[in-house]
């Protein structure tokens, strides 16, 4: 089966799902008060965009701040934990445990201290993103083949050469993977903080739209955010493949 056929089947499936949904609403199977028809969502989409885009920008700024913090702290921490077995043995169980605890539990506390503004959402994004970064980078660093380093040393390579020629190419893929995974985690953290304790941003807007029973607008916003995050992830995957070819 060619790529085009697969693509056509995907498009047809989505179209069929949307048509079935539309028919279910029109036929009275589901109440349009709670689940609006796709046509109704499309109708409000154009009107929702001007209101949504600035809020989305607001959320993305918070996401980016938290993401940058998580990467700047998480990557060095992962490198240290991965390259020093003693530190790994002592600290890793705690990192894994913190990774496993649902972060939503401490969000109210962060909101209590930092209020309902930018810093809470950015910090929440960082808290969500940092643990996967540390775990992935540490695992990647540990997997560097020690034989390569031994051979390089025995052939007279100095520290800078080892770092540049062996460690960097070996660690880079896991750092890139971590940076890619962290984007979605950071966005999740920012959105969740806005939903729980926000007065701006897209998460707050979604929560308020839901509580006001404005279902078509809610679905339109959900669609906008979904399309945005899917395109970001696809773009990063594309970038990753390009980088992989370059290596």
């Amino acid at each position, binding site marked *: *089966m060619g790529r085009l056929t697969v693509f056509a089947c995907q498009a047809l499936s989505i179209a069929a799902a949307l048509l079935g949904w539309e028919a279910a609403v029109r036929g009275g199977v589901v109440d349009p008060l709670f689940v609006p028809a796709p046509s109704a969502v499309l109708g409000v989409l154009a009107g929702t965009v001007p209101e949504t885009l600035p809020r989305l920008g607001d959320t993305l700024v918070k996401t980016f701040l938290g993401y940058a913090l998580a990467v700047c702290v998480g990557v060095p921490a992962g490198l240290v934990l991965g390259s020093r077995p003693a530190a790994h043995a002592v600290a890793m169980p705690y990192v894994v445990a913190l990774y496993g*605890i*649902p972060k939503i539990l401490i969000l109210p*506390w962060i909101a209590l201290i930092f209020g309902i503004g930018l810093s809470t959402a950015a910090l929440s994004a960082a808290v969500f993103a940092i643990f996967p970064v540390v775990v992935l980078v540490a695992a990647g660093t540990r997997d560097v083949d020690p034989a390569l380093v031994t051979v390089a040393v025995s052939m007279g390579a100095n520290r800078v050469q080892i770092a540049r020629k062996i460690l960097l190419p070996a660690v880079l893929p896991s750092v890139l993977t971590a940076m890619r995974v962290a984007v979605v985690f950071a966005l*999740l953290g920012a*959105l969740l903080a806005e939903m*729980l304790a926000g007065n701006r941003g897209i998460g707050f807007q979604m929560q308020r739209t*839901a509580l006001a029973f404005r*279902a078509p607008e809610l679905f339109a916003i959900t669609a906008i955010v979904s399309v945005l995050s899917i395109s970001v992830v696809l773009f990063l995957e594309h970038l990753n493949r390009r980088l992989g070819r370059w290596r």
Partner: protein
Amino acid sequence: MRVWCWRAAVLLAALLLWEGAARMLNPILYVGPSRLPSALGRVLATRDLPPLSGHVWLTLGEITAAYALAVAGGLWVGFLLGLRKTLGRIYEPLLAALYAVPSVVWYPSLMLFLGLGPASKIAFGVLLGFFPVTLSVLAGIRQVPDTLVVVAVSMGAGRWTLFRKVMLPAMASTMVGGLRSGLALSVVGVLVGELLGARAGLGYVINYAYGLMMTAEYAALVVLVAAAVLLLDGVGSVIEGRVKRWAG
């Protein structure tokens, strides 16, 4: 042995730092570890708080329902898409795209559709738990060596024997990892749902304590829930280790 001493030292240092910082700062916002036991006592005696046991049982019930549905749905979709290659090629990219959306985006719609009761929490737990289970089944099926399947079939293995003796051992370690992350995410889904809007359940009690600025009680509840989650995940990791040893 020395590693354990160091770990204990790190934990102790963290607790001391936390205690020292909390003593210097505003006691309403920062609760030191020394204040946790008494707060835990107050929480368990349910003074000023809604009685706890009913909420705990409700949350556990929601988690059980969500995880059971996520596993059933995830295994079904995973095997369907994994074994029927055509379906897999069409629908796996769509699933992966949906997985790239931050899950909490779906929660307001679920809340609108299913209300503030347990149904929306269970649905969100199912949604979160479903993806890792499905994706791990798909990844596991890809790990089954084709040659083994061909050899087994040529030796006259039936469908069930093929599944039980060839596919399952090859898939087991990946699949059990997915089942474990699915459980963790189902728990997160239910807790997030309860914290974002509920009238009952553990998340509701946490929100209640936080809303009344009962910070010590809030902190005690958070530590309690976090410990329970870690315990559950610990059990999961033991089971995962067993299965991995069985699969070799």
